[in-house]
């Protein structure tokens, strides 16, 4: 290795960095130890390199760059979030539109007939074994009216004269195809226990029952070992369910 070759190699030499371990530099450094001119050149060159290194490392940083990077990050990360929100909103609107389009069709297929209402109410009594759950238990009809009125029920129902003599036992409110139904329970007198219910009157707005019995008509039916009497009076339709003997007692 001659001096020029050593200079070419040592041009890349950085004192204090792991370069000294690099075998490429070892021979050149060894030569510099023996060659005074080369050693001097290396010393001067190292000073120049260090000065240049310092200059590079002092390249001024624009003010606010860090803040700009961080704010860019927020903008970029929030963009997908915004997109997600927009997508979610669009999906939500689509679902709502779909539901809005389908629901009327589904509802149009719901059986809103009086027969359906009648059967459903009878099943309610039959399923509960003649003891449907009551929300209010009382023998006081005034309290029953008040309770129903306060719970979106039918507090202004009108009872047939004969039924007015029956002992009320309580009431509850139900839903049928999204419509409110009131249930008023009575003891027909057949059962000696005064709070034992055996007659159940279901009340629904006539407007909620397109094919309700016409006003003035009283119809009897038998279903699930229960007898029913149905009629329409004013703006309401009524179904009274119980055993046939008790029912006959009031009509």
């Amino acid at each position, binding site marked *: 290795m001659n001096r020029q070759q050593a200079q070419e190699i040592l041009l*890349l030499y950085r004192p204090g960095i792991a370069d000294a371990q690099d075998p490429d530099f070892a021979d050149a450094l060894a030569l510099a130890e023996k060659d005074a001119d080369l050693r001097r050149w290396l010393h001067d060159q190292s000073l120049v390199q260090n000065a240049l290194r310092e200059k*590079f490392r002092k390249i001024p940083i624009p003010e606010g760059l860090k803040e700009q990077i961080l704010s860019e990050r927020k903008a970029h*990360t929030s963009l997908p979030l915004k997109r997600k929100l927009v997508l979610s909103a669009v999906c939500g609107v689509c679902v709502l539109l779909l539901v809005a389009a389908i629901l009327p069709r589904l509802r149009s297929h719901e059986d809103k007939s009086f027969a359906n209402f009648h059967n459903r109410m009878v099943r309610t009594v039959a399923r509960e074994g003649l003891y449907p759950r009551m929300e209010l238990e009382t023998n006081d009809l005034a309290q029953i009216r008040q309770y129903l009125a306060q719970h979106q029920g039918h507090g202004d129902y009108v009872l047939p004269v004969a039924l007015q003599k029956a002992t009320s036992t309580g009431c509850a409110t139900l839903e049928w195809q999204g419509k409110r139904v009131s249930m008023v329970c009575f003891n027909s007198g057949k059962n000696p226990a005064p709070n034992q219910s055996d007659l159940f009157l279901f009340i629904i707005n006539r407007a909620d029952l397109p094919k309700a019995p016409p006003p003035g008509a009283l119809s009897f039916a038998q279903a699930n070992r229960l007898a029913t009497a149905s009629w329409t009076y004013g703006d309401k339709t009524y179904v009274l369910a119980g055993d046939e003997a008790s029912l006959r007692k009031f009509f």
Partner: protein
Amino acid sequence: MSHTEESAKRPDFESLVEQYYRPLYQFAFSLTQSESDACDLTQQTFYIWATKGHQLRDVSKVKSWLFTTLHREFLESRRRQKRFPHYELSQVDDELPAISPARVSQLDSAQLLVALGQIDAVYHAPVALFYLEDYAYKEIAEILSIPMGTVKSRISRGIAQLQQAIAGSPPAAQPKKESHE
């Protein structure tokens, strides 16, 4: 290493920016010689980290990853502008000018920028990494995706051109002494 352990050691974005935005900007500035382009490159690098950094398994290589990414982005931006020739030089064939450390110390940033602008573009990145970071040549080679021998030859050539540019540039204006006549 479990995912939890790995993510526990993964630096959060803000501390990563705090730690590396200065050297990355300086590297970008050395490549572009333009403050706005360097800012863009630095920002783009951190943006790429934010979106793809999770793919880096070995978090100890974050710094190299950032420099590599910045350099790739720089090359990509240049590629979009124009193709610049890549050529290899096996040895330094320019004579090193005699410049003193004092002459270098007199340089201001603008003069360093002018000098950098005078060296061939292909040498910018290796020379900048040579001066800015204490990377081993092997690491510089990995960052620039070129063989180590090429790294060394480019640095040699770049240093020679840089020193020639500095030697040929006028010294920075010295502050005039006030006359009290």
